[in-house]
Each structure stands twice: as structure tokens, then as C-alpha cells.
């Protein structure tokens, strides 16, 4: 199963490192990553594979949200289908 991780917040050093380490510890494989700065805001979108993950998607989403709060970022993990459904015909 694949999911989309989004990380949004004020830019600072080490965000990618913290998020990717957090995911790696849970055996979440990053398939694609793209990151940009919109005005002074950091925005990163990752496509990840959960087939080997130690957590279920719902639990991972919850943990990532808490981890995001700790580093002052808004972190979401959502099933990729929600974006496919909403933005393609």
C-alpha cells in the first residue's frame, strides 16, 4: 500500500532528515520525494510504500502527526487514493 506524506510549516534546518529518519525507523520506504519553499514556508510531499512497515497506516498517521507537532510542522500521512480520487477523473 502506498501513502502520501506531506510536511508543511515554517522552514528550518533538518526537517527532511528528521522526517525521513522517523519513517526509516518504521520500515517505511520512500519512493519519491519533492520539496519546495513556498514564500517562507517549507512544503514537502513524499510518496511512500507501507508494504514492509511496522505500523498500520492509521497508527502511522497518528504518530506522524505527533512527531510533526514536536518539530513544529504539520505532518499528514494519507492513503494515496484520496488524492487520486479527488484530483483525477
Amino acid at each position: 500500500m502506498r501513502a502520501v506524506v506531506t510536511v508543511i510549516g515554517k522552514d528550518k534546518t533538518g526537517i527532511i532528515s528528521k522526517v525521513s529518519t522517523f519513517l526509516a525507523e518504521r520500515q517505511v520506504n520512500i519512493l519519491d520525494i519533492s520539496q519546495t519553499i513556498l514564500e517562507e514556508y517549507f512544503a514537502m510531499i513524499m510518496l511512500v510504500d507501507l508494504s514492509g512497515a511496522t505500523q498500520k497506516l492509521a497508527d502511522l498517521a497518528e504518530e506522524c502527526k505527533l512527531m510533526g507537532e514536536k518539530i513544529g510542522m504539520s505532518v499528514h500521512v494519507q492513503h494515496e487514493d484520496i488524492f487520486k480520487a479527488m484530483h483525477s477523473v
Partner: protein
Amino acid sequence: MFNYKNVLSTIEMVEREHLDIRTVTMGISLLPCIRATGEATAQAVYDAVCKKAENIVKVSEALSKEYGIPIVNKRVSVTPVSLICAAFPEKAILTGKALDKAAKTLGIDFLGGYSALVHKGTADYEKTFLKSIPEVLSVTEKLCSSVNVGSSKSGINMDAVKLMGQVVKSTAAATADRDGFGCAKLVVFCNAVEDNPFMAGAFHGVGESDTVINVGVSGPGVVQHAIEAVPDADLAEIAETVKRTAFKITRAGQLIAKEAAKRLNASFGIVDLSLAPTPARGDSVAQILEAIGLESVGTHGTTACLAMLNDAVKKGGVMASSQVGGLSGAFIPVSEDIGMIEAAERGDINLDKLEAMTAVCSVGLDMIAIPGETSAETISAIIADEAAIGMINNKTTAVRVIPVPGKGVGEQVNFGGLLGRAPIMPVHEKSSGKFVARGGLIPAPIHSNKN
């Protein structure tokens, strides 16, 4: 890979614009639960509902986390109880209580289906059943009731309309300690639909299969935001914007509905496209109309804006879902919509304008507080007017008014949560008594004769 704009727009819709799935509603057939006695039937109903819906809360919460879209309510709708208890209508209250108990056991928000379909005539067992509604609604919390008193095909059963005026009054009296709260759980319909996921009017039609998942989406804030992003657009462009937005919202609903049905071992029923507001600011249908260009909802132009909005929502939504049903339109409940509440407080909207609005949108006069001293005949006449609009226009209409005991115009009632607060609105004072007392059937319109 996904593009930034799309991914971020979905997240913004949820975080700032109140996009949510308003309800995942499981429809359950109670026909196999009919037993020889009222007591045995009530027990069979309790067991069946608890068994079939045992995972609805768990599954909905998991889906909500996985897809990142809040699912606000989990609900169950059942076969109209008047049918299940036809042989012992005086015991229907036992089934009502059993359903309420099941709702509490399951941890769901509402359970609908303490209902009767009397659009052509009222059988004796149905009369007994209808008279049990006030008591049932006063001793239950999560149970909702609805009664269909008319249809485009059959006309309007004015005897039932007359009786329902009294039932509404009695329900208010029976729940007087809670400002007539029982009436917030009671809807009187014309052209009721069998697959509606929204309360208080949800029931599981007899033409449905045994377990079905129907989903209601919600997204007035998303639509409002999209309209505000095109400030100079003409109305054709606004309609296009609404269509595109409705498409996205509905696709989210379709995805959740399909997945929920799969995990709950039920058939996928329908997605209801209704724009359902909440009392939160920025989650209001009235504010959409104001974003289009009205100083206040209720002023001249409101009906036209609402007609356009309602139609555009359907056009966008129909393409997004494989099966659309339920009520599917814009809801205009007064107490559940902050824009409506404020317009009513300012005196910018009244019952007559709301009635006109119901001719072009779903569903009807909804969550409107009226003076406690309003007579049963006047409430019946309000129901008759609304049923006539539905009957002639081949659409669902409904009345959910609360005659608040001991309160009058200028006062307010607060039901809390999604049900919100409502200023008490005036009704016409001249009597409709003789018209209502005549009873009988208003015949179906000529255009119903299509065979």
C-alpha cells in the same frame, strides 16, 4: 507523483474549510426480525442491529485516519418500524427503546427509522404507531423518527397531516424540559427517499438489500472558498466553479463509501451529494449565497442563487459517483447554519422566504424554532404547504419545526452540537383550522399520471 497544488488543496480543504464526510450510515433491514410478540421483536431488532453494525464505528475511525478526512457521524437507519410492529403497534415503543439501546451499545451518533409511510392512507396500526412517537422520542436519545405524508404519485394524505400537527405539538410537550428537543428528531416528509443517510429523516426502504452503506458528504466551506477565489466571475463561471468543487468533494465520499462497504461486509448504496452545513463559521450554505453576492441570505435573489447552487452541486456530484441518491442538494436548516442563524436573528429571513427556497433545493423547512403557542392546525398547515411544493415539483420536501414550549418570538433555543441554536421565528397568526379539519386526500397532480 502528485502535484503540490492538488495535494495541498486537499489538505487545506480539511484543515481550513471544514471538508468532511458528514456521515457513514448503515441501512439495515429489520424485516427478518419480525416475531410473534412485541417483546420478542424488540429483542430480535436489538440483536440484529448490534450484530450488523458492530464494526461501523471502528471502521469509520480507521478510514478517517487512513485517508485524512474526518468522518463526523456514524449512523444506522432501519426499516420503518411501523411495518415491523404492524401486528402489535401498541408495543412499537419497545422496539423504539431497543433501537435506542442498540445505538448506545454501538456508540453511534443517531439511529433513524422510527418511521411510517402513510402517503396514501393511514391504517389503524399506523395511527396507533404515529401516536406513540411523542412518548418514544421523549424516552430515547439517539432514535429519530420520520413520517411520509405525501408523494407526487399518491397525493397528500391530509388526515395524516392533521395528525402529525398534533404529534409535533405533543412531542414538544413531552420534551418541554429540553425546549421541545424531541421535535429535532422528527421529520414529516413528502416524497421521502429510501436511501437517505441524513438525520432525522433516514430510514431503510423495503426495496433496499439487507445491509447497505450510504454516505453523506459535506463541504459548504470548500464551495464558499472556491467562490471567493473568483471574485469577478459571472454566474455561469460560478456554476462551473461549484461543479468542479462538488466533484472533488463527492469523489472523497465515493472512495470512503466503497471502502466502508467493503470492510463492513455491506453493499455500497449511494453517495448523497447534499451540502450539509454545521453551526461552525465557514461551514455554512447561507455564507455561500452571501459569497455569491447577497448582503444577507433571505434577501431578494436568494432563491435564484440557491437554485443555481443546488443544480451545480448535483451536476458536479453526479459525475463523481457511480450511484447518487438520498436527498442530494443544498440543505438549509436554520439552527445548523451560522449564516442562517444570524440572518434569522437580524430578521433578514422569515418562514415565507424559507418556504420559497425549499422549492429549489433539498429539503425543506428544517430545524426552525417557532413559538410554543403555535397551534397544531397551524403546524399541519405548514406541513401541507411544504408537502404541496414537493408533490407538484416531484422533489422531496420536509418539515422539522420545533414549537418551543413556553417561549415566543425574540427568544432563543440552544440544542448544542451539530443541531445548533435557533431564534424563534414568527408564524402567520390567521387560522388554517377549517382547511386542516377537512381531512381527506389532496389528489395527486395530473403530471403524476405517466403510465
